[in-house]
């Protein structure tokens, strides 16, 4: 134990801080692995029973097996795949533009409190306005093109990015800024070595909500007249012709897309903001 050999000749202070909190006993861990599956399995079971006993008309709620087969075959090169990619493409383009335009602005606003206070109301107001309420306005401006869907989704996502980045900079730990200052860092050095890093945690919260927001708006925009592609379009189309199997499959594809985006962003966040929550 004394291999650490510090002059206090006590190993405890130098013990590995990561080693604390031993793993729980193996058996419970094995069982715990299956806990997340319980919810979906129960849900599908209830769904199946409801259909089997005819509690809801089959035309309104198709059996889960049919729906899931439609979903899987649809996504594996079937009719859903193209719409899935189109929606993903629109969401990511809208999100990408929002980040490129929003992050620098948010960080700049956050590091200048007076500038932020002067636009705070405008940002808060539009942030609180449901972005879908603006879709008709954007239809007027951009028409029913692809650009319209991307523009409106981009606007909604952009507000979230700006707000959260600014918020992250404003709430940077004062002591870290003080530490840099006392070491003789200039304003620019404090900005790039402390403020930008400090803001990352809040920024990522913004990025995650922004990508969800972009997806929501893209799907809604795709439901409007004139759309020819996308999951939103698919859902509305299937509903119009009472193809409920396809409608549920398309809804679930949108769910899969949203969930996958969230998981992907969480993974990226954990990689980049590795100190988060520690």
């Amino acid at each position, binding site marked *: 134990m004394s291999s650490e050999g510090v*002059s206090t000749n006590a190993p405890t*202070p130098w013990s590995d801080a990561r080693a604390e909190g031993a793993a729980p006993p193996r058996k419970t861990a094995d069982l715990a692995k299956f806990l997340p599956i319980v919810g979906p399995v129960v849900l599908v079971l209830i769904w199946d029973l409801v259909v089997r006993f005819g509690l809801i008309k089959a035309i309104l709620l198709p059996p889960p097996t049919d729906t899931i087969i439609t979903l899987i075959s649809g996504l594996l090169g079937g009719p859903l795949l193209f719409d899935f990619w189109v929606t993903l493409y629109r969401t990511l383009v809208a999100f990408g533009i929002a980040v490129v335009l929003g992050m620098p602005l948010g960080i700049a606003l956050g590091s200048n409190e007076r500038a932020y206070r002067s636009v705070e109301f405008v940002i808060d107001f539009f942030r609180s306005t449901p972005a879908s309420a603006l879709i008709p306005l954007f239809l007027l401006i951009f028409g029913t093109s692809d650009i319209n869907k991307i523009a409106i989704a981009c606007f909604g996502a952009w507000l979230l990015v700006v707000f959260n980045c600014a918020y992250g900079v404003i709430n940077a730990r004062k002591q870290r800024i003080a*530490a840099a200052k*006392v*070491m003789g860092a200039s304003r620019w*050095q404090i900005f790039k070595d*402390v403020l930008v890093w400090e803001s*990352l945690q809040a920024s990522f919260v913004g990025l995650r909500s922004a990508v969800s927001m972009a997806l929501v708006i893209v799907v809604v925009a795709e439901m409007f007249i004139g759309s020819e592609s996308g999951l939103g379009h698919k859902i509305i189309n299937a509903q119009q012709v009472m193809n409920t199997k396809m409608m549920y499959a398309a809804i679930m594809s949108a769910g899969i897309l949203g969930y996958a985006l969230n998981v992907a962003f969480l993974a990226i966040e954990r990689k980049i903001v590795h100190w988060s929550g*520690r």
Partner: protein
Amino acid sequence: MTQVINAPMIVDVPRPHFRPGPLGTHITIRGLTKYFAGWPLYENFDLDIPKGKIVSIFGPNGCGKSTLINMISGLIPIDSGEILFDGKSLKDTTIGYVFQNYREALFPWWRTIDNIAYPLKLMGKSKAEVDRRVEELVDSFDVKFDLNRYPYELSGGQQQTASIMRALAPNPEVLFLDEPFSALDFEMTLFIREKLQEVFIKTQTTMMLVSHDLEEAVYLADQILLLTKRPTSIADILSYDDPRPRTTATLSEASFIATKKKSLEIFQREVRK
């Protein structure tokens, strides 16, 4: 020849003559004034901090011990007054600062070693110079933990050790320590206290230590600066000259006990006022 007789004269009010401190003074504080929410915390405060000594600051709650070193180190702006380091301003002085809360002092986005090297990089040192200095610090601190880890992967004592290494990296003329042991357990406190004394014996760096633990304050100090309640002034400055390295045996020396007792008496007198 036309000449205005008795022309109005504009005379600057002469600034009060700067009174230098006694020989061996490092930091001279003159006419320091600081108001908080309309109330004076410091008013026309004068102080001389000797060079190459450790000064412990002790006083009642809220008297502005930390504020004092924060003003000297430039973290809190002063309302008026003058603070000089060997006659220079803060701008031309290299200082180090150790915070109480090490968790929010180090930068978790960089590895510990990059944290320690940061002040050297700020000074524009070359990579070779930075590496050499960091290695020197690692040797003198006898570091046994992995500096390539991130700060949050280290224990509290390791993090505070890294903080002190970072503060000492640029060979500061003055080292400020704001309750550096308060967030540590007893074992770590002892360890870092000894390290600090070692560094001091080796480098004779002027240190200002804020402490709420009288024993610790006296143990490390050459001078104990006792402050009054606000508006803060100097209650007394006690010298304590037992030789270094001081050890646990020092704690039972008559001179140590006497200094501690005297400090406590002054402190209690000030608290009761």
